[in-house]
């Protein structure tokens, strides 16, 4: 891998996510809960999501005699050291998807098209649903992280409700400041920190002043917009209060100062800083989970279609085309670049898993053991898929570029023991020859339901009720 440009000394991470001294969830859980919970760390959900689909023939592991015997493929080879914590889920299909599949992927619905950049969801997304169920357990209900340009207007991954997207924060410096209570927890002078905290609170209080006359003048629909703003400000206040109590005992790695130059495009929106940015967001994600600042993190590695992301930091990938362009090259018979891009991202995912595994929680399990990591993709495969039976009408293999079939899902971690890992699940395809050749499989909403069940929720359906729901057979222990 080429040397990363622009990784300034200031950005070298001080401290490590693994250094948390005490675990706040334990303290807060003890007074109210029974002893049985003493050593049971909470379950966490971490969604890693990347765009454009993969090259399925270079992604799918080679199946062995049983689901535990499999050989990782070229793209997934960097994840070999995590194979014991891995479940490969093959052949699921996003039934409702018609492009802009980020919107579909965690909601299980098709989208409402109001024209670029308004592709709206028709339901809540999995991560936000879980966050809503867990609201109040942690200072932040959820954390949405982006890298470089997290969204390019083609649709978001996280939706708090139908039509209400949750924008990922692409600046690690802003994420850090948020986790540090508006940066106050970074101030070492105690008196000054106390003044800043009181100052910040006073500004918030003016918004929440119950005397505000504005709402009285408004009709119900307008009032809802104002109420939503007030509720969000209340959320800021709640975060601030709870973070003050949590952060005393836990270390969030310092990301340093934002090197952006005023008046210019921010440093964290510069494509060539992606490797450094991904590292920073990864460390912050792991710290937020370790310190129990939140139990739900969604890390959007790139926005839908990858924006205009090019790769001067991946060996063997020229800057001739961007990510989206290279994914279309596959249908022209050239899958080398997309394979290298996919492999690089598998390496990055492996680093995230290393970090999660390095954190030991009370009771001796690792953070990874108590987390469910979903590696999600916008699309399935690209180009003709040689491993599928040929299309009986054309006699050719199906061209599945940017299609919803053959979703390349990976799960990592045991989710507190709910999932038995080290397996390669090859789910059945449809029965008719035409549908098989087009790789029609089970609805991916089954996976969403299984994840909810693994996290301890009893839901039996998620997303569009028109699809047979159920779970991924054999996934949970």
């Amino acid at each position, binding site marked *: 891998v080429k040397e990363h440009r622009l990784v300034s000394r200031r950005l070298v991470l001080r401290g490590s996510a693994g250094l948390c001294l005490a675990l706040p969830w334990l303290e807060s859980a003890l007074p109210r809960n029974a002893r049985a919970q003493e050593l049971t760390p909470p379950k966490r959900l971490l969604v890693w999501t990347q765009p454009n689909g993969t090259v399925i023939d270079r992604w799918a592991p080679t199946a062995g005699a049983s689901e535990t015997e499999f050989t990782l493929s070229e793209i997934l080879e960097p994840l070999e050291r995590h194979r014991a914590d891995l479940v490969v889920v093959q052949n699921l299909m996003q039934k409702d998807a018609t492009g802009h599949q980020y919107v579909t992927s965690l909601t299980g619905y098709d989208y409402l098209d109001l024209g670029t950049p308004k592709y709206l969801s028709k339901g809540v997304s999995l991560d936000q649903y879980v966050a809503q169920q867990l609201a109040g357990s942690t200072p932040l209900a959820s954390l949405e992280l982006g890298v470089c340009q997290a969204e390019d207007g083609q649709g978001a991954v996280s939706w708090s409700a139908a039509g209400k997207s949750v924008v990922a924060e692409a600046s690690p410096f802003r994420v850090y400041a948020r986790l540090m209570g508006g940066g106050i927890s970074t101030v070492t002078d105690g008196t000054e920190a106390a003044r800043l905290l009181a*100052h910040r609170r006073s500004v*918030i209080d003016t918004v929440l002043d119950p005397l505000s006359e504005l709402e009285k003048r408004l009709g119900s629909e307008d009032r809802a917009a104002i109420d939503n703003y007030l509720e969000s400000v209340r959320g800021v206040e709640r975060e601030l209060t709870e973070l003050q109590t949590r952060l005393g005992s836990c270390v969030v790695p310092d990301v340093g100062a934002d090197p952006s130059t005023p008046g210019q495009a921010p440093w964290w929106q510069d494509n060539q800083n992606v490797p450094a940015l991904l590292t920073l967001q990864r460390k912050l994600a792991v710290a937020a989970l370790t310190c129990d600042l939140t139990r739900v993190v969604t890390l959007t590695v790139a926005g839908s279609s990858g924006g205009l992301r090019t790769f001067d930091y991946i060996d063997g990938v020229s800057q001739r085309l961007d990510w989206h362009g290279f994914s279309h090259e596959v249908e022209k018979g050239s899958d080398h670049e997309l394979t290298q891009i996919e492999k690089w991202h598998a390496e990055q995912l492996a680093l995230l898993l290393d970090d999660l595994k390095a954190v030991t929680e009370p009771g001796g399990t690792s953070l990874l053991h108590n987390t469910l990591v979903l590696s999600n993709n916008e699309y399935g495969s690209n180009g003709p898929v040689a491993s599928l039976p040929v299309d009986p009408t054309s006699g050719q293999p199906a061209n599945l570029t940017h299609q919803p079939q053959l979703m390349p899902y990976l799960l990592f971690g045991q989710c507190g023991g709910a999932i038995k890992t080290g397996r390669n699940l090859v789910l059945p395809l449809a029965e008719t020859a035409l549908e098989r050749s087009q790789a029609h499989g089970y609805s991916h909403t089954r996976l969403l339901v299984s994840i909810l069940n693994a996290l301890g929720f009893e839901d039996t359906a998620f997303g569009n009720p028109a699809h047979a729901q159920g779970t991924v057979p054999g996934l949970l222990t």
Partner: protein
Amino acid sequence: VSWPGKGVSLCVALALTATACNTETTPNRPLLTGSSGSSNTAGSANHAGATPGPTPEGFLPEGAPRSAPLRRLTRSEYRNLVRDVLEIDPPPEYALPEDWTNAGFRSTADELTTVAAATRYLDAALDIGERLLPTIHDLMPCSASDLAGELACIDGWLTSFGPRLFRRPMTDEEHARFLAAFEQARASETYEQSASLVVEAVLVAPELLFIELPSGGKPGDVLPLDSWQVAARLSLLLWDSTPDEALLAAAERGELTSRAALAKQVGRMLEDARTHATVRSFFDDWLGLAKIPGLAADPESYPYLPRELAAELAEETRAYSEDVFQQRDFRELFVSGRRFRSAALSGYYGDQLSQEEGVIAHDAEISQQSFGLLSQAGFLMTLAHAEPSSPIHRGAFVRRKLLCGRLPSAPPGVLVPLPELTTGVSKRQNITEHTAGAACVGCHGAFNDLGFALEHFDIAGTWRDSQGKLAIDTHVSFDEPGLRADVDGALQLSQALANSPSARACAVQQLFTFALERIPTSAEQAWFDQLGRSFESSGFSMKALLTELVLSDEFRSRIEPGAPP
């Protein structure tokens, strides 16, 4: 959603020729040569015998007009307010919550505020407060020596700055709220810190962030705006900022509910340089021009396209469309001899028009290669993607954005096995075969042809005689109430668009939506027709049309949101 039917027998094929227009075209003179004969009423020739009306049948969506949604300030409105009122550098755009769109234009309408967004407002305000500290005495001077005196200073500041910040005088309750915050802070902080806290509190107040519109009636009620609200709406629309002193003075006198007084202000404001950015933002959003500066052309296939040129290509189309808006005939958006060129752009187009560094207006002959929006390289590149050319994207753009056609999304769950691409045939043939299936042609039939007419322009927006060794066929015809033409190539298509009642109605709809922040519907057909007629009688002046819109009763009122009972 259905397309205007094709069964109408009144088919007047516009035998348009590529006649070069006089480059000195002024708004009221004939622009195009065509069988319709008359310039300003080219569309009406097609409706001989029918009730003359500028709006094609079925053009407006059915239903009652939707109310303009309550919204927050956009990023640029917030930044301009900080710059204009507090006279300090505004926070960078990214420090504020994202803008989205409302009916195609940048807006915060219908966007929920999240905790992360509220955190941005708070952080931006606290940052401004901190930067104001060293000069806070210039903004909020005070020589008092006791708390009562300091409170009087702050109270005076709220009185004098309130109208610009809240776009109306602050209420007693608001005064009390900010004074209480000052007093509380002053117990432990300095005067400067406490005074900046007041600024910060004002900057996160919902009264500042939300644009207050009259409300409280029954859903569907039409509620008039008061003079302050008219001032706010006008200033946010034309200047992207809070009202200035003169406008506030007119608002204070209660004048702005009268059309005549309003007209005086509108005339003054439209002449101000601040409207340039607004006009450009209108075209940026309508035509997607903001994408041009970031274009990533494929350097292997197009080594002659230097990346540095992207900014000038953007300026070309932005300056061209602004010129059309300010002083020309709307139809010249499609066809004119005006070219905006720098030396670098002239080099790219190979036309020798300019040796200058800056992008400025030149006049030249209209030609097949160069004639208006649809021949401008930067604009064409926004619809190119990484393909040899993209007639589908181009055609869909013309249909949706220039003709305001409503295309449904692809039906969910439909998975069509696409035929293999035949090699050795033109892009047109490829796409025609590829989208011939019953599931595709319903939508693609509405826009493929519009894109095929542009096929002589390659991915980089430059002219090509052929696609490699393959001949290019740009002959297409349209037989719709709003567009009847038999054309060969991009210039003739542009001439047909300039003559198209749909394209004109579309311009009215776009400007209507931009100004009123809502889409016109069939219930407003009569007024919409009226707007179309005055657009025509003004010589298709977009500036006159915008004036007409902001002087309307509709601009000075709001429909109470919510479904009517």
